C-alpha cells in the first residue's frame, strides 16, 4: 500500500534521510526503530508532505511527493506528529470534529461517540480544552483525532515520548485493538522497541538516515544488535 524507495529528505542543505526503502502492506503494523537523530521524524514528515523529499513514495500506486499535507490526508494517510500536536486551544470534542475535516459524510457525530467510548477519558473531558489534559490523555486524543479521518494508514511518531511506562503500555494496547477492529495499517516509529515490536508484524532499524536491518518482529527482537541497542539486555 505504502511504497517508499530510495527516499532522501531533510531540512535545507542537511539530508537527514539518505536513500530509505521500505513498504507497508494494507492492514499491517510496521515499526521503524531508531535512536534520536536517526531520521525517524523526517521520514514520516516527508511522507505526510510536511517537508520535501526526493525518491519514490507511492500510496496505492499514486505518488505522494510534491503533494500538500491536506491533499495527502484526503488520500487516507493520518499523521500523529511527535509531541502529539493536539490543538490545545480547542476542546476535546472540537479536536475530534476537526479530525473529520476531510470527510463529507453524515456519520461524524456517531464516530465522535464511538471514539469517546473507546477512550473513556476523552468522553469525560469532551468540553475541556485539550491543553488542560495530561500527556497520556493528549496522546489518546491525537490518535482518536487521526482516526476521525478514517485513514487507511496511520503514521505515529514516537507515541511513547514523555509518557509513563504504564500509560505507554495502554497506548500500544489501544493501537493493537484499533488495528484489529478498523483494519487501518499502522506505521509507528519508536525508540521503545519492546512495546513496538510486540504489536507489529515487521520492522526496520534506522541509523543515521539509512535502514541497517529489517525482518519480522520476532527476528528483530531476538537479533543481538537490536537487543543491545534498543531493548537494553
Amino acid at each position, binding site marked *: 500500500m505504502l511504497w517508499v524507495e530510495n527516499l532522501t529528505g531533510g531540512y535545507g542543505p542537511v539530508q537527514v534521510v539518505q536513500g530509505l526503502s521500505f513498504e507497508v502492506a494494507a492492514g499491517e503494523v510496521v515499526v521503524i526503530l531508531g535512536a534520536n537523530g536517526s531520521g525517524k521524524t523526517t521520514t514520516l514528515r516527508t511522507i*505526510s508532505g*510536511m517537508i520535501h523529499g526526493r525518491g519514490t513514495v507511492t500510496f496505492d500506486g499514486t505518488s505522494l511527493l510534491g503533494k*500538500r*499535507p*491536506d491533499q495527502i*490526508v*484526503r488520500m487516507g494517510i*493520518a*499523521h500523529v*506528529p511527535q509531541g502529539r*500536536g*493536539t*490543538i*490545545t*486551544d*480547542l476542546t476535546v470534542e*472540537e479536536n475530534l*470534529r*476537526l*479530525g473529520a*475535516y*476531510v470527510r463529507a459524510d453524515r456519520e461524524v457525530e456517531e464516530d465522535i461517540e464511538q471514539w469517546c467510548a473507546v477512550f473513556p477519558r476523552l468522553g469525560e473531558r469532551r468540553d475541556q480544552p485539550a491543553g488542560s489534559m495530561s500527556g497520556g490523555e493528549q496522546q489518546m486524543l491525537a490518535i482518536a*483525532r*487521526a482516526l*476521525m*479521518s478514517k485513514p487507511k494508514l496511520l503514521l505515529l511518531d514516537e507515541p511513547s515520548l514523555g509518557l509513563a511506562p504504564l500509560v505507554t503500555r495502554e497506548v500500544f494496547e489501544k493501537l493493537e485493538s484499533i488495528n484489529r477492529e478498523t483494519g487501518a495499517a499502522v506505521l509507528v516509529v519508536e525508540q521503545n522497541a519492546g512495546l513496538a515490536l510486540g504489536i507489529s508484524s515487521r520492522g526496520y532499524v534506522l541509523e543515521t538516515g539509512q535502514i541497517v536491518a529489517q525482518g519480522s518482529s520476532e527476528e528483530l527482537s531476538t537479533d543481538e544488535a537490536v537487543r543491545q541497542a534498543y531493548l537494553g539486555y
Partner: protein
Amino acid sequence: MMVTALLAEEVSALTNFLQYTFLGLQKGAVYATIALALVIIFRVSGILNFAQGEMATFSTFITWAIWGDGRVPIWAALALSLVVSFALGASIERLVIRPVSKKAAGNPLPIVIATIGLYLAFSALAPAIWGTDAKRFPTLFGEGSLSLAGASISYQTLGTLAVLAVVVGLLFVLFQKTKIGLAMRGVASNAESASLVGVSVGSVLMLGWALSSAMGCMAGALTANVGLNGALMIAPLIYAFAAATLGGFDSPAGAVVGGLIVGLVAEYSADYLAEVPFTTITFIGEQLRIFPAFLLILVVLLVRPQGLFGKPQVTRV
C-alpha cells in the same frame, strides 16, 4: 430658585455625559470593527497588517464609485463593494503575503515591510484614481435621531452599533458553528497540526484576509459620511491598534471591548480633560484624543502584558 438651577446643572451634566457616551460608542464600534479585522489576520497568521486602514479606505472609494452619487442605492453599492473587498483581501493574501512569507522563513520583518508596501500603494491609489478632494458620502442610516434624557442619539449611532452587533454575531456563528470556522481556529492555535488533519492552511489564510478586508469596507462605509478622502482611516487605524492591544491581539472579544473602551475614553477625555495639558491633541487635521487612551493601555500592559483578554505567552527553553 437655587435648587432648580442646581438641578438644571445636574441634568445638563447628565445630558452631556450621555451625549459623549453615544458618540464614544459610535466611534468605538468603528474602531472595534477594524480591530476585529486586525485580530482575525493576526490570529490565523501572526501578521500585523499595517495596510488594514488603507485597504478599508480604498474599499470605501469603491463603494462610493459604485454608489455614483445616488445612481445605485447605497446599500446595494455597499453589498457589491463588500464582495469586491472580500475578493481583494483574498488576492492580497495569495499574491503578496504568501510569497513573501514563504521566502521570509519565519522572520516577521519582511512581512511587516510588505504590509507597509501595501499601505503605501493603497494610500496613494485611491487619490490618484479619484482625486484628492473630499467626496460626499451618504449616511447609511439617515440623518434623524432619537431623544434620550435630553441627549440625542442619532440613527447613525444606533445603526453603527447594530452593524457591530451583526458582525460579531456572524463571526461567532462562523467560528463556533461552522466547519471552516473550526478550521480557522485550529490554524490559529496550531497550523501544523491543522494541516495534518487535512486543513488547507493556505485557504484558511486567504479566508482570513478576505473577511478582514470586507470588515474594513464595512467600517469605512460607517465613517465616510464625514467626508471621504485618502486620510479617512489613518486615525481610526491607530485607535484600532490601540483597541486590539488593550483587548489582547489574539482575542476577538478583546478587540470589541477594547474598541468600545478606546472610543469612550477618547470621547470623555476630549471634554472632561479639556483643560488638562496633552489630552486634546490634533493629528493630521483630525482630533486625535488618544493620549489618555494610550496611557490607559500602557498601564494595562504593564499589569497584563498580553492585554485584557489575551492569552499569556508561554516561553519554553
